[in-house]
């Protein structure tokens, strides 16, 4: 585990060196522009739009980083042949994967926390004070981070057995499908054959349900998120990441790196 921690720390350092945190500048500019402009062009939604826009930006920036850097975590090491030097040391392949995952999640956590702080500052500027109910924004940010961790795990899994381009397509595809799990559940099963209905039900339960982590609307309207949901979503993300990372570790350990 200590070896995985070292890999994680180096992954974080590498991400910082790769100027991943520059996304914060974009976020800051976007939020400042929104804070000034929204009040001029709309009615009564200053706070709502600041929260929706802030959380959407955190999510979009996070998803882009998770997918593109997540996929490159393994493939870059292989392209540069640094992986071979690393695996020649007493580091197991699963430890390497876990470290890479931890490093990128740490990067995302720092990035997301900084953006959340920026969002709260803009809210303070717009509202002139923060209330207890505004804490729901932090819950929404936490859920986004859980979602990003799951995306990183998926990106890692796909990058273990296919090309970077396909891994990106698979990850993005699964992410989008994961947003429509509820739609899948709402399909009219009455008109399907029993086998198809069973398959749809089975699929809708097993696919990663990214809609679970979406509380943006609640945050925008200052509505509290139940504590049970926070716990359930945390467990869901931990269990799902464990499954995906285990699968990734199995695939990666069997991969012929010659």
């Amino acid at each position, binding site marked *: 585990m200590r070896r995985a921690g070292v890999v994680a720390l180096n992954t974080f350092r590498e991400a910082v060196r790769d100027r991943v945190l520059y996304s914060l500048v974009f976020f800051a500019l976007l939020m400042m522009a929104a804070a000034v402009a929204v009040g001029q062009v709309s009615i009564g939604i200053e706070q709502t*739009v600041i929260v929706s826009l802030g959380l959407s930006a955190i999510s979009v920036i996070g998803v882009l980083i998770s997918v593109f850097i997540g996929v490159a975590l393994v493939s870059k090491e292989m392209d540069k042949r640094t992986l071979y030097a690393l695996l020649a040391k007493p580091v197991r392949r699963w430890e390497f994967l876990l470290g890479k995952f931890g490093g990128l999640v740490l990067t995302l956590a720092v990035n997301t926390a900084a953006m959340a702080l920026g969002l709260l500052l803009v809210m303070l500027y717009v509202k002139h004070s923060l209330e207890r109910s505004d804490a729901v924004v932090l819950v929404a940010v936490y859920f986004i981070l859980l979602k990003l961790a799951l995306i990183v795990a998926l990106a890692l899994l796909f990058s273990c057995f296919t090309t970077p381009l396909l891994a990106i397509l698979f990850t993005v595809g699964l992410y989008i499908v994961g947003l429509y799990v509820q739609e899948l559940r709402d399909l009219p099963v009455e008109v399907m054959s029993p086998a198809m209905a069973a398959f749809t039900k089975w699929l809708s339960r097993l696919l990663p349900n990214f809609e679970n982590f979406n509380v943006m609307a609640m945050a925008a309207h200052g509505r509290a998120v139940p504590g049970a949901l926070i716990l359930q979503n945390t467990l869901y993300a931990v269990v799902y990441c464990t499954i995906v990372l285990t699968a990734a570790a199995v695939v990666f350990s069997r991969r012929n790196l010659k």
Partner: protein
Amino acid sequence: MKSEKTIAWVLLLVLPLGFAAIWRLQHGIDAQRAALSQERDDVLLRSGRLVKIMSLEYAPLLADIYWTRVVQYYGNKHVRGQANLELLWPLLDITTTLDPNLLISYRFGAMFLSQAAPAGAGRPDLAVQLIQRGIQANPEYWRLYEDLGFVYYFDLKDYPKAAEAFLEGSKKPNAQLWMKVMAAKVAAEGDSFATSMFLWKDIYDSTPDPSVKKNALLHLQLLKVRGDCKQLDALADEYAKRYGKRPARISQMVQAGLLRGIPGDPLGFAYILGENGKAELNLDSPLLEQQLLLDRFK
């Protein structure tokens, strides 16, 4: 070294000149396009459900964008004095489907829809539909019942339903006490000056938007004019009783001691007596145009 200097000079020359040319060209293109194209409003996707599905997880942000589009669409039409607001309903439909908890869109949307042209779309039926949808999504929010009562009272003149809406709203958490009083008053009296004044005053006091505030102020001013003219007509009747003929000018009522001076409308313009002997707004008063405009679309 020399070539670098040349490049720098070329850049210094080309960039400002180039962008200045682009600036002018764009003006020319804009003028050409404006002459070629007619004004075209369009909502490409009219299904709120489809827009919601396509919005991935960003429906609340998209709802804010659509709401801003509603405000801009209504504002542009309003400024140009255009009565055709046919896209208002599809835009509001999409906004509220994307975010059923965006209360402001129900409240202001209903106002934009219900009022007679040119202040609104003149579709109180759609306003009722919008508010009822809002109530379904936010059953505990009493202000939506107030808005429903408002539309029934002013635009549909359906006083029993207005009273019912006020009463229902009065049972909700945090509802103001006057909701119950209003329910009883509207049920008993129907249309009344005091009720109208109170409702517009509440809109005036509670709205955060300057244009809605201005609209409420205009209605309050016109209501005041209505009340003043009614009183002046009563005094003219009194004058007719005393002198056997109606006064031709308000100054005659002043001379008869019925008035202390010539009264003015809320903008300070003196009232006049029309050819039929009834009190009315001065021809110079800006309120006259507004009154005629509202009466024309009633």
